[in-house]
């Protein structure tokens, strides 16, 4: 069973449906027993970093997630990926979970072409930098769906794939130990996204 961490953030309809469509058993939960019993864990998230981090802290699940992330495949999606980093500067400085080295910064600051629109929203091609079992069914250069204004930086050692936006190589997929993160939404990235989720379920 794949446990999707329920901490009151975001709309999980598509994520649940996509896993179901792959024939996978998934459950949205904040139960420590279920999270411990799960084969793998997905940390979703949309919205602002500070709010989401506070909500996650309120659940009291952070120490458990830290333990479980060492034992089983763990996937953070979108804001859920950003939470994996050490810190974020979205509306003030916030500490992240620190599962992956790096920081979350405003994409706007790093874009040289100020005409480029932020949020970075739409389909962008994903370039694989380091091959990994997560890409078992994914072809280099396939398009994935992004919606975000902040991105992971100073995480070169953990970056598996990026998407180019202007001069910025946007961190698309990171990995540290058994912890993965995708900045894009695999559950909204059509067939290519489903294949990434399928590979995650087989890790």
């Amino acid at each position, binding site marked *: 069973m794949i446990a999707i961490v329920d901490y009151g953030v975001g*709309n999980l*309809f*598509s994520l649940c*449906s*996509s896993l*179901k*469509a792959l024939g996978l058993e998934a459950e949205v939960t904040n139960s420590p027993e279920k999270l411990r019993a799960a084969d793998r864990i997905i940390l979703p998230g*949309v*919205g602002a970093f500070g709010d989401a981090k506070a909500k996650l802290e309120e659940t009291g699940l952070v120490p458990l997630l830290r333990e479980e992330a060492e034992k089983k495949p763990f996937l953070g999606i979108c804001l859920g990926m950003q939470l994996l980093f050490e810190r974020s500067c979205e509306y003030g400085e916030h500490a992240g979970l620190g599962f992956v080295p790096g920081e979350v910064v405003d994409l706007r600051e790093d874009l040289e072409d100020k*005409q480029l*629109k932020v*949020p*970075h*929203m*739409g*389909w*962008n*091609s994903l370039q694989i930098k380091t091959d990994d079992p997560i890409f078992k069914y994914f072809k280099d250069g396939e*398009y994935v*769906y992004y*919606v975000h204004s902040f991105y992971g930086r100073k995480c070169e050692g953990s970056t598996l794939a990026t998407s*180019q*936006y*202007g001069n910025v190589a946007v961190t698309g997929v990171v990995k540290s130990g058994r912890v993965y993160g995708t900045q894009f939404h695999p*559950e*909204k*990235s*059509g*067939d290519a*996204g*489903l294949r990434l989720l399928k590979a995650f379920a087989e890790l």
Partner: protein
Amino acid sequence: MLAKRIIPCLDVKNGRVVKGTNFEGLRDMADPVEMARFYNTSGADELVFYDITASAEGRTLFTDILRRVASEIFIPLTVGGGIKTLDDFDCVLKCGADKVSVNSGAIADPSIISAAARKYGDQCVVLSMDVKRVDGQFRLFAKGGREDTGIDAMDWAVRGVKNGAGEIVLNSIDTDGVKRGFDMEMLQELTSRVQVPVIASGGAGKMEDFAELFKNPGIDAGLAASIFHTQQVNIRELKQYLRSQGVEMRL
């Protein structure tokens, strides 16, 4: 870089997809879930559903269809039609919509834009506008293009973005259904005024119209209904053609 998006639009009334010409004389087309499946396999980058039913029964039917589409199709879904309150946002988002488009609802109560943007984020709020030339001005129309609001459409767009609209759909009533190409002049005016993604709607009749559209770098997406529904233009062929013309496309 981001690919340009091709978006089929499904107007749903009483559980069926309909599409009119110049907003009148609606013609029944097909089953929305079937069509969504078809568009997903033919490479659509996003789907837009407008609920054009007025009755409560119709709305229930619509959210039921939306839920069915969202449980098997995993590309972004935008939903509009009759969105007036935060509860309306909530309802369609829970059924699997990713973005919600407001039109007449925002004209009646502009604060819906900022309230929704605060609650769900800018990226979730799409400002859809029906615009027509009146006395040398781009004029905003309400109620499916039937009512002249007297408001300058470009000022309205700028104000909407300031309040938190994360994307704009510009539908030119002047070119809608005419199939002689998008309203490039009107679109140029809009893209020079706002910095959010712009979706062009109204006027597409053939593949070349999309190539012309994307010559304006400020346009992010082209939206059409009947030419896709009738297979006059096939989305996969269109995207291959556009890529051959140097437009970035997800294929």
